[in-house]
């Protein structure tokens, strides 16, 4: 919210602080100031210029030659703005002056014509967003008068960040209330320049005609058909107004906060919105059919051209202000173009209404249009402020546009607002804030905010909440917050007290994740984090309002995202990419239920096994690296209950190359992970990239505790080893051979390790030589050669019989 420093001072005359001090105080009250801008900044060289004559440029259709009096004689200025006119007053930057952006105006020739200075737009002076033409000023002035003093720009604009719970701060009065010494009671409405005090007094005493459903007077009828959405609607007729540009003081106020002056009637309504936070609207009474105003929900399909020039089709989500026939405005959002106040308008109907937040929010969403009015109504406008705001705007209009008030104030009021009285226990204040507060100090902290403390016992206070705080102060705790805030957070101690340990045990998945991270890091992998979004084909759960089509789904697995990270790295010239990620994968569940979520671990490996060294041949990662990692991951995740098996079926999309594909199988036979070489066609990599290895496993939702290590006694006696070169026929896998060896090894069998695999040479076609080292161990003695030989013979015999396996160097 843009706030004018001078306006605040006018509302709180006792407020004596610099803009910087106010900015600090607002921040400490919870409303940080995001920008602080002296309006005169960079404008010291800009003066008022009077355009005395305008001629066409001889060589350019769009440019005009202006005779400008900038106080220092009349000079020629070439101007491209369409709204330049003889007799007009504009900001003028003479040759040698500079603009707020730092540009110095020089003497230039435009299409052969000399230009001695520059006529400026709002945008060029940093005074507002309008760049469509010159900033038109309402004269008369003295040419050459500095712009800053002429427009009263000795002001500072504060951009105050107002939180969603404090609609009362969307006005200068609300901000002033927080800052003024004495708060609420230190405020007064600034006098209206040029006002006739007698007329003002008459207005204040104007009769109010109040009815609950429909009210008539002065030839106008107001009817509310939807009291829930519109609890109150006030109307006032002013006839005989002269619509014209606003006087300078009014324009100055509006410009100070970045609003653009339009005409005296519209400016008056905007002024009151900014001063008191109450949105108002002025209708051209002549355009209100049959002088009737009906507040009702729009019918589906009703049409209205709104003030922004859009033709809008309304729906039942929208509350409409209608005349006898059709909508003339969207309640609380925007007026209609047809009933807009124009220079021909003489009689106006002023609307000052209260609309409920929810419906305005729906209307704003339905129309896709947020305005100053809708922004305030959505958050909550003071339900007690309508009468005061209506009188304020009427006084300004009478003072600036003339006219007379016709008839009573029409007050249609189907639902009266009743102030809440909240109980407040000082004991509860201490229980929540940790510091005791006396009733008297509670009173002195709350009263300045307009929160009236009615009774003063020490047990319980009663606090009456005014309308402007009725949206956020509804409970005892809301009052306690106000006590803490106005007391000052910094004044509470920071003494760390005792605490009881919590009853919530660590979720076990965090520990498994940490152990997996440590393991993968020790294998030389870098942890990646990728957003959980995926394109079509990589997820089952679809977003309603995705950011892009590439991120339209939630991923059902992590590996494709890691593949994209690999592609990204290789495209940037990085090599040897080894990444892993632990993250959430989503799958569809029953309609209406939350999607199923599981934490997955995925890894991708590419490049050499170790960093290339000058002394070695480079060794690329191969399937055994992948398998070793997958085995280790499976071991950590499952404590040994997962098995790994080569897979020849496509199980995981088309990602894995079947020549080197494993799946991890849980104890119940379910597939819980996969790994292998990635199919070159499944990934977009240059041909030189070489093989890419990947794995992905599903982590258990509630992992088992890994348990304690139990010590096993070390053998006291040396073990005995025997090497065998086994000749395996085609189709016989090593794991079957290993299982048989284990089964036949007897009680002293310790382990079998493969140490060489060899084909060709003197090995017969179709056979494979697999060299294994068998180890035998007895707990209580050293085994004799004879014993071991016997076991080995048994194993060899079984291998021969069961699988037809021969032993090299032995007759089979």
């Amino acid at each position, binding site marked *: 919210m843009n706030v004018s420093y001078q306006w605040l001072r006018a509302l709180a005359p006792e407020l004596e602080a610099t803009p910087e001090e106010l900015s600090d105080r607002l*921040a*400490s009250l*919870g409303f*940080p100031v995001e920008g602080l801008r002296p309006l005169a900044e960079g404008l010291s060289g800009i003066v008022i210029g009077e355009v005395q004559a305008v001629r066409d440029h001889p060589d350019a259709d769009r440019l005009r030659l202006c005779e400008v009096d900038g106080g220092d004689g009349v000079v020629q200025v070439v101007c491209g703005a369409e709204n330049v006119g003889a007799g007009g007053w504009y900001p003028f930057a003479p040759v040698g002056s500079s603009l707020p952006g730092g540009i110095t105006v020089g003497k230039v020739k435009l299409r052969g014509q000399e230009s001695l200075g520059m006529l400026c737009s709002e945008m060029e002076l940093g005074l507002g967003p309008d760049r469509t033409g010159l900033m038109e000023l309402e004269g008369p002035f003295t040419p050459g008068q500095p712009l800053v003093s002429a427009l009263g720009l000795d002001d500072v604009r504060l951009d105050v960040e107002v*939180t*969603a*719970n404090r609609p009362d701060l969307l006005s200068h009065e609300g901000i002033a209330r927080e800052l003024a010494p004495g708060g609420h009671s230190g405020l007064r409405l600034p006098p209206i320049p040029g006002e006739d005090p007698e007329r003002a007094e008459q207005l204040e005493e104007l009769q109010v005609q109040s009815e609950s459903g429909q009210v008539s007077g002065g030839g106008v009828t107001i009817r509310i058909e939807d009291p829930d959405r519109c609890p109150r609607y006030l109307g006032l007729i002013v006839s005989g107004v002269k619509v014209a540009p606003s006087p300078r003081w009014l324009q100055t106020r509006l410009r100070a906060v970045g609003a653009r002056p339009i005409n005296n009637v519209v400016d008056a309504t905007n002024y009151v919105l900014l001063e008191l936070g109450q949105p108002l609207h002025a209708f051209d009474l002549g355009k209100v059919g049959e002088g009737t105003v009906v507040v009702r929900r729009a019918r589906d399909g009703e049409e209205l051209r709104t003030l922004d020039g859009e033709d809008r089709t309304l729906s039942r989500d929208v509350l409409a202000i209608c005349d006898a026939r059709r909508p003339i405005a969207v309640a609380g959002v925007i007026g209609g173009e047809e009933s807009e106040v124009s220079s021909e308008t003489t009689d106006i109907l002023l609307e000052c209404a209260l609309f409920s*937040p929810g419906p305005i929010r729906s209307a704003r969403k339905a129309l896709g249009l947020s305005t100053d009015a809708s922004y305030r109504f959505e*958050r909550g406008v003071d339900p007690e402020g309508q009468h005061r705001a209506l009188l304020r705007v009427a006084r300004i209009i009478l003072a600036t546009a003339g006219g007379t008030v016709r008839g009573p104030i029409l007050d249609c009021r189907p639902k009266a607002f009743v102030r809440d009285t909240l109980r407040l226990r000082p004991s509860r204040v201490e229980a*929540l804030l940790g*510091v005791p507060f006396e009733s008297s100090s509670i009173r002195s902290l709350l009263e300045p905010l307009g929160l009236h403390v009615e009774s003063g016992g020490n047990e319980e206070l009663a606090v009456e909440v005014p309308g402007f705080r009725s949206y956020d102060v509804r409970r005892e*705790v*809301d009052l306690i917050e106000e006590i*803490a*805030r106005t007391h000052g*957070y*910094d004044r*509470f*101690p*920071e003494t760390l007290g005792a*605490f*009881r*340990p*919590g*009853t*919530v045990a660590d979720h076990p998945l*965090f520990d498994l994740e*940490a152990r997996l*991270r440590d393991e*993968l*890091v*020790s*294998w030389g*992998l*870098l*942890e*990646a*984090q*990728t957003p*959980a979004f995926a394109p079509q084909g990589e997820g089952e*759960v*679809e*977003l*309603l*309002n*995705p*950011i892009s089509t590439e*991120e339209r789904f*939630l991923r059902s697995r992590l590996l494709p995202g890691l593949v994209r990270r690999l592609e*990204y790295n290789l495209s940037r010239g990085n090599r040897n990419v*080894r*990444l892993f990620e632990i993250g*959430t994968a*989503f799958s569809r569940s029953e*309609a*209406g239920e*939350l*999607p199923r*979520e599981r934490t997955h671990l995925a890894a991708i490996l590419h490049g050499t096994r*170790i960093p290339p060294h000058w002394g070695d041949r480079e060794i690329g990662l191969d399937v055994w690296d992948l398998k070793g990692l997958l085995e280790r991951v499976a071991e950590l995740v499952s404590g040994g209950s997962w098995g790994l098996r080569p897979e020849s079926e496509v199980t995981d999309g088309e990602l894995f190359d079947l020549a080197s594909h494993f799946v991890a199988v849980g104890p119940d036979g379910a597939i819980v992970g996969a790994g292998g070489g990635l199919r070159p066609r499944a990934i977009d990599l240059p041909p030189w990239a070489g093989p890419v290895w990947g794995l992905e496993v599903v982590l258990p939702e509630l992992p088992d505790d890994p348990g304690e290590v139990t010590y096993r006694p070390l053998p006291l006696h040396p073990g005995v080893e025997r090497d065998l070169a086994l000749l395996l026929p085609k189709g016989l896998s090593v794991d079957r051979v290993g299982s048989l060896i284990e089964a036949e090894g007897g009680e002293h069998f310790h382990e079998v390790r493969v140490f060489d695999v060899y084909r060709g040479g003197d090995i017969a076609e179709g056979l494979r030589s697999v060299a294994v080292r068998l180890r035998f161990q007895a707990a209580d003695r050293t085994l004799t050669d004879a014993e071991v030989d016997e076991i080995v013979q048994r194993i060899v015999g079984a291998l021969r019989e069961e699988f037809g396996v021969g032993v090299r160097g032995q007759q089979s």
Partner: protein
Amino acid sequence: MSTDGSLIEQLRGLEEEALAAVETAESGEALEEVRVAFLGRREGRVSGILRKLGQLPPEERPRLGAEANRVKARLGEALEARESALTREDRTEAHSEDLTLPGRERWIGGRHPVTQVVDELVGIFRDLGFSLARGPEAETEWYNFEALNTPLDHPAADEQDTLYLKGGNLLRSHTSPVQVRVMESHEPPIRILAPGMVYRRDSYDATHTPAFAQLEGLAVDEGITFVDLKATLAEFARRYWGAGTRVRFRPSFFPFTEPSAEVDVKRVFQDEAGIQRETDWIEIMGAGMVDPAVLEASGLDAERYTGFAFGMGPGRIGMLKYGVPDLRLFFENDVRFLQQFARS
């Protein structure tokens, strides 16, 4: 004639000869031969002369004995000196490799920088008695908004532009739903942390990504006050950013806490020249006393229990800590970036 005179002369002649032999020996073996030839117990020539000691009259024996010991000692030193010289030469010759060549490395892995920040933050709060909880990333409107005292038609529900799923559920826009889930399933005292990913409909820029990490904290018990909130978070800040860190609590608004606060820190430190310096105030988290409506929605008696909650962005804290200028770097996963953090 004095026999000792000639024996001493012999001894001195032998000394010259032996020293020359030591100096010309070109290997350890040659040196050993010299040692045996002169000082050997049996065959050594010096020992041979000493064996003749008995032939001398008793009064002359000490002189020759002393001289013989001096010669033996001198030869011993010379042998030692020559040996170490030879060893030195040996070493130089054997190590013809250029040892300035690089050694053989291993790939160094590393946790993601945001994980590292989360782990550090969690470590500190663990010491302050918090345990780890988790909740789903896809949530209902109830847990993400309504149970957190945020009516769906309130502008506060808009401020975190939410990503919705087809079918009415949504991606949590903060980790606060975990507060409600934990309070529903556990009796106070509750002291939990909930790290996790949250989602908002933000386009990617230097300070926004549609998914980002958040760390939630919640403490609920009888007698927890605003002073406990301030004390706990100030203690955390000083442990994380250093003992001299200044902490500021500013009023703010979150629908699910009241009173609510923004917490800022200002680091105070000594620079390399020993001059005390300080940073600007940096906004690091939102916090507040758990709103009674949230306690009630979670099934707790709000008259009996009070609590505080806080939430911070490990990604943002990581940006400040590491000087990373753009949040997107954390999601690009360029290995050159990740490797900079691969120290653990």
